[in-house]
């Protein structure tokens, strides 16, 4: 089962990269821009048909390596088979 993990900086955590992109977009004239956050998307395949189990294992992966929970939060989404 494929699981998509999205990792983002927690609110209040300094993200100089997102700030730079924000400034660049503003200077391009996007004056309705209210903010930019940047993250990382990771897709993992897990050997199970049980969605709850897949979610649980993906969360374990985030907690132990994929996210640094001091500064990052993560969301987990099950990819429905097409």
């Amino acid at each position, binding site marked *: 089962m494929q699981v998509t993990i999205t990792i983002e900086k927690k609110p*209040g*955590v*300094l*993200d*100089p*990269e997102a700030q*730079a992109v924000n400034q660049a977009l503003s200077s391009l004239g996007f004056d309705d821009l209210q903010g930019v956050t940047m993250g990382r998307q990771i897709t993992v395949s897990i050997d199970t048909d049980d969605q709850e189990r897949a979610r649980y294992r993906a969360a374990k992966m985030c907690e*132990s*390596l*994929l996210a*640094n929970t*001091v*500064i990052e939060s993560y969301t987990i989404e099950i990819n429905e088979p097409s």
Partner: protein
Amino acid sequence: MRVAIIVFPGSNCDRDMMVAVETLTGRRPALIWHKQTNLDPVDLAIIPGGFSFGDYLRCGALAAHAPIMNALHDHAARGGAILGVCNGFQILSEAGMLPGYLARNKELKFVCKQTTLSVSSDTSCELIKSLDNSEKLHIPVAHNEGNFFADPETLDAIESNGQVVLRYGNEDKQNSGNPNGSLNDIAGICSSNGKILGMMPHPERAMGAGHESADGKKLLQSIFEAIVT
């Protein structure tokens, strides 16, 4: 004095550190490959600078889970001394052995320059006890992710426990030479027991003869003195 230097794929300051340690102690430190699972008893374990695992995922994240790290956690639990320099600092922070996080430099640029450092007057770091905190140290940095960050509670705790060891610039003057935007000008911190020191500047690149400064030698010397006594 038994010193071990932990080497990861992508470490690039391990040899410089080895020369620095041998110069000061007269004994060549052991270079320990990250795949080893045990660490013979040592007085000091050093994680050198570099780009372990290509900085993939986050700087230090993959190294923080390498096989040798269990042995390093055991060493720390026994009250053992650890020094992490640059990428070594990032690895200690990813391994949860030091608080906070080292984010991208504020200006989004790799900085490679000489810095002026103040030794905190109230530091609880056991490893630099003999270092004269009235003198400024000149030690270079070379990093892309050295921007120390911690949430306000953690930062308060670090400050009030005396865990800040080194700051960029003059301690009494904020933002006087901070190269990366780190909170409170922090350049180096220690663990709550004062035995684990993480610092972004490279003392092994300030060893006198041929280097711009000899203050790194002074800092390393104070660590060896602290361990012997």
